């Protein structure tokens, strides 16, 4: 692989991992959501993300060129080879925590993929165009809930504020760049995260203030996923998600 291919492989992989791990977390709500319509909504989002993960991991495998499949990448990679952002793997917490996270991540994805639509890599641009159409539903849904919970009862207000405070320290990582990103940006493949950050901040600040919530100040920010360093939670996700392929390698339907 050339340096550019290596960079593209990791870039695509990290986008795929974000979708895969987020999808896993939302799927955990299946049959546990507060109302039936919410169960449908969260599992619909999870399905969108699984589809996105599948497209991205298929493409990553193609870039890698070793004859691997999307399934190989999802089920046979070790924790340290996953590059999803830490915020995606945190446990769901209560409903407010899940909605606060969905607001932060879906707004990020909306602005990120809106930029990626203009990538010179046509496969990434196509996946981005598709993702934007889906993510705007996720973002609108999360926004509605954050407004409703923030501007609701004292209990709901406190819970969503606690969730936002807790999650804030994981948002810095969303905008970190590395040398591989720089290489791809020069080729007009990767997204410029600085402009994404401005748009994301504007949108999130607007929703929080409308929801009568206070925006936490930027303090210590967790980091590590770029080097495959994760919270303890990713290992637990993988031990469940990869169980079958680990216990019975080559098992098929």
């Amino acid at each position, binding site marked *: 692989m050339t340096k550019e291919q290596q960079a593209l492989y990791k870039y695509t992989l990290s986008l795929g991992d974000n979708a895969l791990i987020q999808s896993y977390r939302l799927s955990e709500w299946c049959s546990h959501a507060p109302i039936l*319509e919410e169960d449908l909504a969260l599992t619909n989002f999870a*399905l*969108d993300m699984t589809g*996105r993960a599948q*497209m991205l991991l298929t493409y990553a495998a193609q870039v890698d060129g070793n004859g691997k499949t999307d399934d190989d990448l999802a089920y046979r990679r070790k924790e340290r080879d996953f590059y999803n952002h830490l915020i995606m793997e945190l446990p769901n917490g209560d409903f407010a925590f899940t909605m606060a996270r969905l607001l932060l991540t879906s707004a990020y994805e909306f602005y990120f993929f809106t930029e990626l639509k203009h990538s010179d890599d046509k*496969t990434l641009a196509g996946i981005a165009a598709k993702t934007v159409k889906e993510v705007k*539903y996720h973002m609108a849904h999360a926004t509605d809930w954050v407004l409703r919970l923030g501007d609701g009862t004292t209990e709901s207000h406190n819970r969503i504020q606690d969730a936002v405070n807790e999650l804030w320290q994981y948002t810095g990582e969303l905008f970190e760049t590395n040398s591989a990103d720089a290489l791809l940006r020069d080729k007009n493949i990767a997204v410029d995260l600085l402009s994404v950050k401005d748009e994301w901040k504007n949108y999130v600040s607007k929703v929080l203030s409308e929801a009568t919530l206070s925006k936490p100040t930027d303090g210590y920010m967790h980091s590590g996923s770029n080097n495959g360093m994760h919270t303890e939670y990713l290992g637990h996700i993988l031990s469940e998600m990869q169980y079958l392929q680990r216990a019975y390698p080559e098992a098929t339907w």
Partner: protein
Amino acid sequence: MLILSVIPDPEIPAVNISEMGMLRDVLITDKGYEIIITPTYSGCPAMGMIEMDIKATLESSGVNPVTVKLVQHPAWTTDWMSDEAKEKLSKYGIAPPLHSSCKAGEFLHNVIECPRCKSKNTVQLSRFGSTACKSLYKCENCKEPFEYFKCH
């Protein structure tokens, strides 16, 4: 193309894959026939089924070897659905997507016409439905629930 037009959408058998705009092209190469399709929704589980249907239909008509290729760019949009497909959806009981609303950004609060009695007095019951492409509505006039194919 004509042979493939009989393949129904596995989730909505009233329309076929050509009318839905999923079937993009057929390439005839030295190695056989390559069918280009574009997925509708990222997580649509019907895509695997469609691929199998394409192969089976063509092979039973003596067309082979066949490969099916998924192409992501340009991304599928409900704008590619033919008017005929929308008419069929409506008859089938699914309100077809409103084109303009996708562009206006007011994609969540549309006035959707009841596919049965054509009343515009309808309410959204659930933003998300039985498949990734639909939401649930109820007609206040004829009291029937119905599905709406979301703009995409």
